């Protein structure tokens, strides 16, 4: 972290960048938040640790409109989103100085809480050190600990890899944290009967309160005005009135980002209701990979997305019924 | 079983639609057993079409077809006369209780070039 701060200072002081986009400590020991740092002395608040899950790519949309360059800290998986945003002309590559930061898996405090760790006062082991295998919590009930991997975000268990897709320089090392199959959950649902599937999603989506956090955090959902706020589809509403609208919103939202979603997992991370929203996106990704060939959105900034592309002998929609 | 039924059974077994035939005769032109046959390959199609299965079933042709599939390969309309004939044979074979080959006839049929396997399979197939 110190190396990162030193480099940020250097860049700010030399005037090469006008600001730094990173994280600062939040009100709790485990919720650092995205922040701009415009002066070198502000960097004293800069943090970077296992709780810095937030993908900063989307902030670059607004940062691209500001004077001067912005140093942005991107984890390996964030760089996919950044590439995708370049492809869609939403960020200006020339306005960004990308520091690829190392990542050893990001943490989900809810997972720790589910392990019975409550009343947390401080955490150690989340720092970006080599020895980060165990998390130690000081709680009002005394010291508790758990394995680092047990408190990792779902997305880190299916990590896309430790390489940055785009960067100006790299600071820190990354670790491959993949220990699960990316599509295992999707396959499990696919194997259900229609009635079971319906019940599963009915249950999952009935939790939705339409707070729009998923939409707001999603780097692919970067529309100036969302169709769900638009008068052009007769679909403008804020709250779900019935079960249909929950489905409508999430199916369409996932459809709109299909072929563009990098599977960064931010939607699931921020959902206050804990809805596993990535199950929608990953279903589209799985279908795209199976039907139109492997495609990873954001692996580069040029490739044509699968939904703006076709081949003459693509499968017919009837394949959905045929493969059962 | 009525004629209509038999005809439709033949169509079903063979998967052939005789209406596709354009009467070009390429089947008969290709047939190596043409001269042995009383009903010629191109006529199979019209017999099925007209529902005259009795004549077909009782014809010499039924047993003269070598199943070489030349007609099937070359038919420009996918009508496949060999399949029709084969279906007609099936029809006969499926008639339970009927015996088409008795052991007494065998010596007469014996021929040193004839593979014994053939006799065995013919026995299985044409005898109940």
């Amino acid at each position, binding site marked *: 972290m110190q190396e990162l701060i030193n480099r940020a200072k250097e860049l700010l002081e030399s005037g090469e960048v006008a600001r730094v986009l990173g994280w600062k400590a939040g009100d709790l020991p485990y919720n650092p938040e995205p922040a701009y740092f415009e002066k070198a002395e502000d960097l004293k608040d800069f943090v970077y640790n296992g709780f810095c899950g937030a993908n900063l790519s989307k902030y670059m949309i607004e940062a691209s*409109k500001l004077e001067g360059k912005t140093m942005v800290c991107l984890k390996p998986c964030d760089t996919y989103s950044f590439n995708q945003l370049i*492809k*869609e*002309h*939403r960020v200006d590559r020339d306005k960004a100085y990308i520091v690829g930061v190392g990542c050893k898996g990001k943490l989900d405090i809810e997972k720790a809480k589910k392990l019975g760790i409550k009343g947390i006062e401080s955490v150690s082991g989340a720092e970006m050190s080599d020895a980060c295998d165990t998390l130690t919590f000081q709680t009002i009930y005394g010291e508790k600990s758990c394995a680092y991997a047990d408190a990792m975000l779902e997305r880190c268990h299916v990590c896309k890899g430790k390489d940055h897709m785009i960067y100006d320089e790299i600071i820190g090392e990354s670790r491959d944290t993949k220990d699960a199959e990316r599509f295992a959950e999707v396959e499990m649902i696919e194997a259900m009967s229609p009635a079971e599937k319906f019940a599963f999603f009915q249950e999952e989506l009935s939790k939705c309160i339409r707070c729009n956090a998923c939409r707001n955090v999603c780097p692919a*959902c*970067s*529309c*100036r*005005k*969302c*169709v769900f706020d*638009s008068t*052009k*589809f*007769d679909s403008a509403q804020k709250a779900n009135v019935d079960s249909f609208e929950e489905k409508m919103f999430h199916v369409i939202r996932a459809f*709109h*980002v299909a072929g*563009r979603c990098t599977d960064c997992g931010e939607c699931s991370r921020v959902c206050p209701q804990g809805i596993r929203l990535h199950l929608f996106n990953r279903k589209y990704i799985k279908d795209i990979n199976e039907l139109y060939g492997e495609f990873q959105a954001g692996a580069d900034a040029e490739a*044509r*997305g699968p*939904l*703006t*592309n076709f081949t003459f002998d693509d499968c017919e929609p009837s394949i959905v019924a045929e493969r059962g | 079983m009525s004629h209509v039924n038999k005809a439709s059974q033949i169509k079903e077994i063979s998967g052939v639609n005789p209406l*596709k035939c*354009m*009467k*070009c*005769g*390429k*089947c*008969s*032109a*290709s*047939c190596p057993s*043409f*001269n042995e046959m009383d009903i*010629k390959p*191109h006529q199979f199609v019209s017999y099925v079409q007209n529902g005259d299965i009795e004549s077909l079933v009782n014809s010499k042709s039924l047993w003269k077809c070598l199943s070489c599939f*030349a007609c099937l390969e*070359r*038919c*420009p*309309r*996918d009508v496949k006369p060999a399949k029709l004939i084969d279906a007609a044979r099936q029809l006969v074979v499926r008639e339970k209780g009927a015996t088409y080959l008795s052991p007494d006839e065998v010596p007469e049929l014996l021929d040193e070039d004839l593979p014994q396997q053939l006799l065995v399979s013919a026995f299985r197939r044409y005898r109940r």
Partner: protein
Amino acid sequence: MQRIGVFVCHCGSNIAATVDVKKVAEMALLEPGVVHAEDYQYMCSEAGQAKIQAAIKEKNLTGIVVCSCSPRMHENTFRSAAEKAGLNPYMVEIANIREHCSWIHKNVEEATEKAVILARAAIAKVNLNAPLKPGESLVTKRALVIGGGIAGIQTALDIADAGYEVDIVEKTPSIGGRMSQLDKTFPTLDCSACILTPKMVEAAAHEKITIYTYSEVEKVSGFVGDFTVDIRKKARFVDAGKCTGCGVCQEKCPSKKSLSEFNRGLNTRSAIYTPFAQAIPNVPVIDTEACIKMKTGKCGICSKVCQAGAIDYEQKDEILTQKYGAIVVATGFDTIKLDNYDEYAYNQSKDVITSLELERVMNAAGPTKGHLERLSDGKHPKEMVFIQCVGSRCSDGRGKSYCSKICCMYTAKHAMLIRDKYPDVNVTVFYIDVRTPGKNFDEFYRRAVEDYGVNYIKGQVGKVIPQPDGKLLVQGVDLLDNKQILKEADMVVLATAIEPNPDVRKIATMLTASIDTNNFLTESHAKLRPVESPTAGVFLSGVCQGPKDIPETVAQAGAAAVKAIGLLAKDKLMTNPCTAKADELMCNGCSTCANVCPYGAITYEEKEVNDHGIRETRRIAVVNSALCQGCGACTVTCPSGAMDLQGFSNRQIIAEVDAICR
């Protein structure tokens, strides 16, 4: 709020017999915005249109719905009627209660209910319609003809004679096409070259016609009246300006082993060559694959012997960009490959040939100088067998499902010519049907049988077996005699099916012209618009549209020319106003829409916008309404829904959905 009038047509009894039209009108009056509803015997009649116009004026209507036949029939009728009464023509919607309702349903109650719902959907849509104004586009007064065969030449001549500039683009080194390969033509036995070459010369000499041979269309953009076409002029390596066409280079060229395309590979040509003696232009090309100089750098004999100094080994392909108002496709045909027909031994014996090859054999400029002889040993044949329908009328996937149309007649021609010139040759024709509709066609065929003694056998050939002595054993059937026939022949001629030139698929894609499963270009209407492609400004000439003989081709070529002239005679065209449009405030500038636009109609501009007080410069999609054809691909791909299609907007379609599901 709209003031909508609903007009329900009886269409005589076509609609009224199964739909309670009074009830439809009555129910329509209950819909929001509807202030007038009536029914009438024939809405499309003068009187019916007058009723509509009167209602528009009297009730001050802002939109109308006509419940009648398909909009594909009378949408334009009602639009222009409305326009004459002062209503914007795009404020008219049609509810199709005939083709989609009265004609397919028997139960009056059900049909009426459905008609009411269809009317309701149209009313819901028209409530959201906005007046649209067609744009105008200028017409470039120049036509492009793709293909320089008889179809292309005739079309070009007709257009040029009307006073318009025409360019012919021909892929091969000379114009002339298939017809130049034919020896004689049916049913008059005219010498093909004698009637074709004057046309070729006329085209070449015509001041309004420019011919680009050895050239291909590479790219087409634009739309009716204003196409931009890139033409690749392939390097000939001979300067057409200097070449005198003396032919010495061809004589002296040491590389003489290339198969002659013109003679269907039956003999060879030199590496520098003109395809045939009457070629236009009479300028040779160098075949780079055969040229010794090109392959090894050594030789250069042609350059040394050329007195005009026309040989230029450094010549490069040129791309020429030209604008056109109309494009005529005349890409013609080829015979199919016979690889699927082993039974005819085409690939096994040189003496089994296609009819087109026989044309070359019979031609004085052909590989045998016009003598009928076997290609294997040069012997004069005594027995010839012709087999009809080779690869035609095949629905088994090996050949073509259609009838190639010309084979019956040219086979009769070949048989007759052979019997006439060589009475010692016996000619047998195996046929399935002899099809001779056409003026003097059946008489021609009968002459072959009655006057020339050609032996026609009703039946097909099963196989052709080459014999060790060089003869061909033909095993066929005589269906009328119910006999199998074994015949020894010296030559077998296959009436091979024809298929559209394989390149046509590429061209159709460039022109966005539709093509059928057999690669024939689709006409706009099978009966009423047979020479127009559904793509505006693209016309069809000759076999590219379907099998044809020469007189039909020439007639169609003239028809295509007339259609092209009709277009070129206009100064301006109205453009379809149902085009896409981006909402500036919603557009993300993400380029997704441009990726799916088949017309390249979407570009991006850095534009200053005022978004509820926020002023900023944004990257915004701009649709060129002249290029946009209104497919709507962009509207669905746009994640924010900024892109919408006028006349088929999101809200309009949703309103229809809602009305139907109500």
